[in-house]
């Protein structure tokens, strides 16, 4: 049986409990995608045209450093959201996202969702409420990583 996009979006933990009308609006901007191991979902500097709801597989968030090459600063897994830059102008990715293994995801067209959110501020507010927790969680994690909690501090 082929699952409808709407059903997948509704069942994804990121949209758990969301009003059916909003699910339909989001699903209208969404499509299924798959990425092979090693394939990039997006690169730093590219236009942030999509965000991804991971259904299977893991994604490495990487920053490229000339001396060290690609440094992974976070991994995302099934049920996670990949991509927050689509929310904030100038809508450009500030990191690379690489599939570690086979990744299946729902890709949501950011421009489409922004348009619908502008037209219906209730949808926009709903999106903000759902995107703020992972945003704050990642900010907190970045702070912890920044202070190097495991380092030897005399």
């Amino acid at each position, binding site marked *: 049986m082929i699952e409808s996009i709407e059903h997948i979006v509704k069942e994804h933990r990121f949209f758990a409990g969301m009003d059916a009308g909003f699910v339909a609006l989001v699903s209208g901007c969404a499509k299924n995608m798959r990425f092979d191991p090693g394939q990039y979902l997006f690169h730093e500097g590219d236009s942030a045209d999509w965000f991804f709801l991971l259904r299977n597989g893991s994604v*490495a*968030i*990487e920053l490229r450093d000339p001396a*060290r*090459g*690609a*440094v*992974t*600063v*976070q*991994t995302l*897994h099934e*049920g996670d959201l990949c991509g927050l830059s689509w929310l904030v102008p100038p809508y450009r990715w500030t990191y690379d996202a690489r599939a*570690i293994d086979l990744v299946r995801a729902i890709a949501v067209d950011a421009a489409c969702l922004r348009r619908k959110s502008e037209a219906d501020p209730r949808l926009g507010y709903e999106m903000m409420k759902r995107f703020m927790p992972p945003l704050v969680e990642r900010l*907190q*994690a970045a702070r*912890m*990583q920044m*202070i*190097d*909690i*495991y*380092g*030897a*501090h*005399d």
Partner: protein
Amino acid sequence: MTDAFSAASIAAPMIPRVARVVKRKREIEDVVTLEIEGGAFDFAPGQFNMLTAFGVGEAAISVSGDPADSARLIHTIRAVGAVSRALTELHVGEPIGLRGPFGRGWPMAEAEGRDVIVVAGGLGLAPLRPALYRLFAEREKYGRILLLFGARSPADILFRDELEAWRGRLDIEVEATVDHARGDWRGNVGVVTTLLSRAQFDAANALAMLCGPEIMMRFVANALLERGVAQERVYLSMERNMKCAIGFCGHCQFGPVFICRDGPVFPYSQLRGLIAKKEI
């Protein structure tokens, strides 16, 4: 109590016995495990000893070996200051001073019948290893056992071979994460609290044991409370500047408690009001 009796009872635990290093293993860059022999060593998981590098000084170090093996004492030490560095530089055959064991360890009896969540950060895995050995040895007494481990990078993962062996067991769940990694690392990257958000356990009947940097323990404890684990069943191993180890000198005083005598393991319910206080 006479003055003489009082002085004697204080003096006895203050006199180190002399043992000998029989094995030395470099775990990671600045961390060494010493195996010590010289009598019988009984201890409870989570307890610590005062180790002396003769001519340099004494430091409180948690036992990291198997509590079922009383013939050998194992300590895993990070070279941070002068004493700990001298301890890590001891060679096989050299004498080492030892007082202990001291303190209250992990609540092994209270954990029976419950899901046990063990969260370790960096060197914090060392004081938890005796508890893990006990949990594995008496596996049938516990519900789910989860070990969540965080480190700075893949090169900083302590007891790596053992962690990989534990990962292979079907009766425990082991997840590791690092703060950052190069491209060839296929494991998790992110802070240890991210592992907790994906972990499956019965919060109403879970007990947690936490050891690592204090800031990590604070965030993990709060995340556990949010998941519904009772604060009385979230245990933290605290670290302060321990000197006498018997609650006399006051160096490790933490509000109304002495870490050496009343801890180092405490329920979060006892520390919650203290741990966020900047003055302590």
